[in-house]
């Protein structure tokens, strides 16, 4: 109950502060032009409200961490807790049960030993809730009073409020960055642990992948952690097969849409094409696994292939390519649209036909942007998970035959981390190492691609 209640109290008091601030600010309005207040009443109102709410929010954030510990400490100090039997795990279970009952989350105790602890828990919760509410109200009143007393006709409430809002916006944007850093840090940490067991050389250059989940963690065979087949599978499906599909189709559709299509046709086709990017990848996944893969196998068998698999790299790659088409085409579309019209006119005025102009002037001029678009598409394809989990294989084969089963980095990560795995087994840790490599590769691709796009934009501005 506590944090929500406290926040509601703060908001209620904040509203009062808002009204009080505005009322006081209204009294500054004298109608005398020379004595006009520095800020409008609304800013005074917000100034007071922010001073009521923000300190309380800071307190609530801290309190919601501290309070449960304070409760626990005070319960453990009671004679009932001192006389509790059992040790470690068992003892913690009793305490947890008593707490749940005290909070009303459980109807009764399972272990009778927990029974005597319920009353102390209830007392402690009641005590600290009261303390929390009192402190909240005190902080809110203090903040509000402080702000209220500072309101004067010449007080620059607007700049103060705007600066506060600016800070809040900054914090919001920091959340995303800090999350990324956090993810990166945890990846690095687990990866280092993995490399303590299996050497990076074995991992990055080994040709055989088959982590032995059942082997005891201290008797690991490093030769089973060679990730080359996975890297190859990822590149083969995401950067070769998918791109063989996506690059020609994407570029041709971009050329059609920017250069030839009637504006009315374009208005219909472009959104439809971009709709492809909005299809959930799991839907692509079962299309690949249930429709395309058996079809490819049947065709291959009919043509005389003996080793055609229903989990072929081809099916996953083709469907992934289709998924990527909108990325390639919209980047190519943007890049060609960014080529100045004067260049197209110049070529047409030389007597070049439309297709000569596209091939010899527009396309070369747009090439950096198009290449960057393809790099972004590749980075997206190699990080794509759902399609390959459903359509590609678990078996990590090192083969260039698109009809054979091939596995990818993302498929293995999913396999290794789902189900009941021991968190410190090298097989589990290897998933982090795979994720780390994938992260670095896509980061590099994105970084280079965005730089190319930026330089390309500058060239025409």
């Amino acid at each position, binding site marked *: 109950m506590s944090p929500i209640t406290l926040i509601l109290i703060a908001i209620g008091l904040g509203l009062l502060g808002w009204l009080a601030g505005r009322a006081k600010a209204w009294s500054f309005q004298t109608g005398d032009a020379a004595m006009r207040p520095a800020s409008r009443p609304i800013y005074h109102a917000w100034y007071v409200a922010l001073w009521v709410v923000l300190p309380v929010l800071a307190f609530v954030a801290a309190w919601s961490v501290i309070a449960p510990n304070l409760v626990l400490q005070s319960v453990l100090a009671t004679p009932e807790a001192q006389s509790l039997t059992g040790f470690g795990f068992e003892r913690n279970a009793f305490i947890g049960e008593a707490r749940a009952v005290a909070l009303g989350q459980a109807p009764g105790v399972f272990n009778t030993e927990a029974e005597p602890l319920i009353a102390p828990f209830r007392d402690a919760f009641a005590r600290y809730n009261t303390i929390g509410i009192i402190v909240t109200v005190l902080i809110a009143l203090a903040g509000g009073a402080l702000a209220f007393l500072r309101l004067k006709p010449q007080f620059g409430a607007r700049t103060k409020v705007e600066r506060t809002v600016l800070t809040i916006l900054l914090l919001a944007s920091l959340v995303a960055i800090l999350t990324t850093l956090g993810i990166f840090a945890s990846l690095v940490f687990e990866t280092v642990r993995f490399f303590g067991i299996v050497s990076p050389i074995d991992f990055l250059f080994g040709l055989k992948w088959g982590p032995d989940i059942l082997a005891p963690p201290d008797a690991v065979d490093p030769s089973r952690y060679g990730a080359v087949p996975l890297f190859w599978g990822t590149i083969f499906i995401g950067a070769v097969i998918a791109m063989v599909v996506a690059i020609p189709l994407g570029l041709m559709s971009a050329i059609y849409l920017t250069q030839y299509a009637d*504006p009315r046709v374009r208005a219909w086709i472009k959104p439809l094409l971009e709709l492809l990017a909005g299809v959930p990848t799991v839907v692509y996944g079962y299309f690949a696994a249930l429709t395309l893969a058996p079809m490819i196998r049947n065709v291959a068998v009919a043509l005389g292939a003996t080793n055609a698999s229903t989990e072929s790299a081809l099916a996953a790659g083709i469907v992934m390519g289709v998924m990527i088409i909108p990325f390639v085409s919209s980047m190519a579309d943007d890049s060609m649209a960014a080529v*100045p019209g*004067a*260049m*197209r*006119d*110049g*070529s*047409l*005025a*030389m*007597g*070049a*036909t439309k297709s*000569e102009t596209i091939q*010899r*002037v527009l396309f*070369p*001029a747009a090439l950096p942007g198009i290449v960057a678009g393809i790099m972004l598409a590749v980075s997206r394809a190699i990080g794509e998970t759902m399609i390959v989990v459903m359509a590609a294989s678990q078996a990590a084969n090192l083969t260039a035959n698109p009809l054979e089963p091939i596995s990818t980095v993302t498929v293995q990560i999913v396999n290794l981390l789902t189900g009941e795995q021991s968190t410190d087994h090298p097989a589990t840790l290897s998933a982090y190492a795979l994720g780390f490599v994938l992260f670095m590769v896509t980061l590099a691709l994105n970084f280079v691609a965005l730089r190319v796009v930026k330089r390309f934009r500058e*060239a025409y501005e």
Partner: protein
Amino acid sequence: MTVIHPNMADEGAKIRARDVCVFYGEKKAIDEVSIDISPNYVTAFIGPSGCGKSTFLRCFNRMNDTIGAAKVTGLIELDGEDIHGSRMDVVQLRARVGMVFQKPNPFPKSIYENIAYGPKIHGLADKKADLDVIVERSLTRAGLWDEVKDRLDDSGTALSGGQQQRLCIARAIAVDPEVILMDEPASALDPIATAKIEELIDELSGRYAIVIVTHSMQQAARVSQRTAFFHLGKMVEYGPTSEIFTNPIEERTKDYITGRYG
């Protein structure tokens, strides 16, 4: 009603336009303009902004075709051939009627490739040696050869604005056109580069029929022998440049020349 000065009757016409109208959707941008463009002179189109002089110029190589909403009616002949006729391919027309734009627009290719672009497309040179000759001749005629002969592989976009515009003129010359259209070719350039372009126009006149659109009356007076004054989509007056500037017949021309509006 157009006033045509009497003493320029039978010069022969490279381009003959009769009752040409251009519509942008509903809007009539050019209203029944008829003109004969002499093969031997530089013809200048002058007039206030939005008077339609650029639109009319773009009729001569059918560049208005590239604007979906634009529609051209009336007759335009190049050496007596209807440029909208079934026997005239727009690709051939544009090879015969070259164009230089307001803003220099070299292709993002090397200087050499910029010049070689047209000859390659039109199949004017089979061998590299022939192409080399065309490139050198075009750049020489455009007065750019000495400045760029040592760096033909540099990008055309790396040149200065004035050099870029001369590169565009050289590019137009390379396919050996009969007419060169220039749409305010110096308006984006500094005075020194402008002077070079004007000098170049002077040197090229006689070899090619040149039509230049300009917003600068001094420029028209300096480079042209024939001047047409446009206003609100109509051609008001057309005659020898000296006559137009010193002795205009129409009141509106006089007002524009003397700076009453524009």
